[in-house]
């Protein structure tokens, strides 16, 4: 009987080993796994406000790899940037879109990836309070409850806005909430303020603006598209094709002829209404906000975010930009598509380079 038991145990162990053995490496992947930090209202797999979301709506990558039989797997995470980091830490992501703070915090804890594209930049910032709030400016909110989605780029934007007004997180009670909950909390007056697009909320009589920052390159942040170093090492030619397709989508998203289509497309996620996109970007060219360049502004802004994350004690380890940004795929894509001069390059202060 004991022999029988040992035989059974050995069978189990063999089965486990078979399952654990990695598949043989191939010339091309069977699937490209793309992680997106965020989702549509109600947990729908949709994104908005950037050309990576547009690439999903337009099936840009699916079309690129259809002939090769490579599946493109998009995964949308309501847990935002931190959820993408959890996936990346467990080797479940090949490419990802990321806001600056989760990108930096992930890097600081050892996640290994290369930045291959800038995605979005600039745009307005609004501090919004419940409609009957007595606050006339952000100073009036001191000592009250603010909401942000901690660990995401929004937290860093909030910290910058506070610092520009001589305040810190310590001057407030800070709750962590996603955008859906922030809207609900403004309606129920559970929070006293948050950073969110205000127009739809104002039209519904829920909220009002306390502070408007139409354009400040020092407040708004840059977002990023990265590839895992493992995937890049195995399939550099696939990385190039992904970047080619995304640069093409970036150009489509930067074309003023597509402004209305783009905003309708982004509004499908339900997070931000069509009208909000129209108003938020009425004083911006699409080329400004949908810009894939890794120019001086991108680098300086990312470095600034690293410094701020350290100063606000959001990271415990140093992060260096050296060897982190890999521009060769972007440069090749721009050259092949004759787009070397399509987007303006910006200097470290967010001004167009002469």
């Amino acid at each position, binding site marked *: 009987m004991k022999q029988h*038991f040992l035989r*059974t145990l050995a069978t189990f162990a063999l089965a*486990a080993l078979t399952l654990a053995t990695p598949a043989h490496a191939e010339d091309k992947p069977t699937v490209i796994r793309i992680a997106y930090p965020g989702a549509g209202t109600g*947990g729908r797999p949709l994104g908005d406000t950037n050309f990576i979301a547009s690439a999903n709506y337009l099936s840009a990558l699916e079309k690129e790899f259809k002939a090769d039989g490579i599946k493109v797997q998009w995964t949308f995470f309501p847990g935002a940037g931190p959820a993408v980091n959890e996936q990346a830490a467990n080797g*479940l992501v090949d490419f990802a879109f990321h806001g600056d*703070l989760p990108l930096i915090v992930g890097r600081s*804890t050892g996640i290994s990836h290369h930045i291959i594209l800038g995605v979005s930049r600039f745009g307005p910032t609004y501090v919004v309070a419940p409609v009957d709030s007595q606050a006339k400016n952000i100073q009036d909110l001191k000592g009250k409850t603010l909401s942000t989605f901690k660990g995401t780029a929004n937290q860093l934007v909030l910290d910058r806005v506070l610092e520009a007004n001589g305040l810190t997180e310590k001057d407030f009670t800070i709750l962590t909430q996603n955008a859906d909950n922030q809207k609900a909390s403004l309606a129920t007056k559970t929070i006293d303020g948050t950073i969110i697009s205000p127009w739809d909320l104002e039209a519904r009589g829920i909220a009002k603006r306390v502070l*408007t920052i139409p354009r400040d390159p020092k*407040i708004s942040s840059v977002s990023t598209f990265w590839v895992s170093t493992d995937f890049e090492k195995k399939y550099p030619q696939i990385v190039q094709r992904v970047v080619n397709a995304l640069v093409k989508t970036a150009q489509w998203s930067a074309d003023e002829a597509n402004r209305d289509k783009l905003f309708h497309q982004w509004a499908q996620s339900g997070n931000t209404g069509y009208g909000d996109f129209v108003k938020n970007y009425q*004083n911006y060219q699409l080329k400004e906000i949908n810009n894939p360049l890794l120019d001086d502004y991108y680098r300086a802004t990312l470095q600034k975010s690293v410094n701020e994350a350290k100063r606000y004690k959001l990271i415990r380890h140093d992060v260096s930009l050296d060897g982190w940004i890999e521009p060769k795929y972007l440069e090749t894509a721009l050259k092949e598509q004759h787009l070397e001069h399509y987007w303006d390059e910006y200097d470290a202060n967010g001004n167009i380079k002469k």
Partner: protein
Amino acid sequence: MQLSKKHRKKLVVGASLLALAGTSHAAAPSTEELEKKIEALQAAVDSLKQQLQAQKTATAPTPAPAVVATAPAASAEGDVDPASQTATRQDIDGLRADLENYKYQQQHDHDTAQALTLRNTNINGTIQTRYAVDTPAVSGGAASPSSPRNSGFSIPLALVSFSGSLYKDYKEGRNLDYRLQLGYAQSSPPSANAYFNVQDAYLRYSPVPSGGDLENPIFNLTLGQQLLPFGLEIQTDESLRPVINNAQFLNGTGLGFRQIGLVARGDFSPNVDYSSNYRAPLFEYAIGVVNGSGPNVQDNNNNKGFVARATYTLPVDYTSWLRELKIGASYYQGGLSLLNGTTAVNPLGYDHFYGVDVYYNHFPFGATYEYVQARNKDAISGVGTPGVKGTSQTLTAFYTWGEQFLNSSKSQAKYDDYWPKSYQAFARWDQWNPNVDLSAAKSAKSTIATVGLNVFFAQTTKFQLNLNRYLYENAAVANPATKSDISELLAQFQFGF
């Protein structure tokens, strides 16, 4: 008032259209007149198209001041209001009709087709359906008269629970929560009847703000019937425990039975890694006082039971190899003289319990180890002999293929009923010796070696396969029914709602 060039152009186009419309009421037009009208209309349409195109392509990136305090109603000149541009009376009427229909449907369903409670309530349940194969034949759990069986179907577990908030503090999270869990239990001695016993029945209050912020320490008080905060195995939820059967010491000592009392639980100095929203409290603690006489009965003496537990978790980032490495120690003092039907639990009268445990869970693999020592020191329960010492050791190791245990995977956005399909293989070694001082001839020491596979294929459902080997130091003492070691194969679906 001087009109702008743009407005003058609009006026001219509008006047042309009006003029054209006005003439249509005169005498029947000739073919030539109709052609002219069509040409004029075409010209008007072309002009409108050009204006629209001009509006689309007009872009004016004007750098604005860095920070501007804004009055709520203030609106920059030239603001576009898409809502007022597109909505018509018909649109609004249509929307109103839809809204009225929706409101009616909601109210009708609310009145006729929805379960209602006075307070927010979550209803959950867990059911197990099992098939077991035993060699040699066993007879445990069967109603008399019976003969030993080699296989059989059973429903070993059926739970229904109700939980929610009696008071919800939206701002600071000082909630007053409740939980009631009813569990199916076979009658003892076994018969065709079964009981549905109260298992959990408690109130829980959080006196300090939690507010959903990961960095806030947790503290709560639980009053009522609940599991003892002792060790790992006792507190591990069915959905997390890889093994079908509980560790032997839970029944052997009586620690696995619920107790009625007051327990304070909390943690402090949480280490939060926001890269992955990983929260690891440096210290967790639980301290409480309970009757010690088991569930659903009054206290049977004046001696209360005191329980305490503390754990330490390494303060490392999510990506560290030492993530979720936790070391814990537990202590319980008090009489545990319990009856499970007519069967006495804790017949040796243990009244002091010590436990140490190690928990390590680094997806995709993990391991747990738990040591428990039970002693009869004071004969508080009035049974057994002082000086008796029992020990238990439980070691479990597991490996998972799939993303069942990753929060980000479980919560990903999908249109369909997605769940990360996962396979978990594990091995367990569980040894219980009720009295370590007895010789091999009298020893009731028993060891259960288990290998198994769990298949998670839907959100609340898993299939479990366990191969158990019961090994007795002296089978005649430890298992008088069969007087031999036992091999057992368990196949079980566990599903919940």
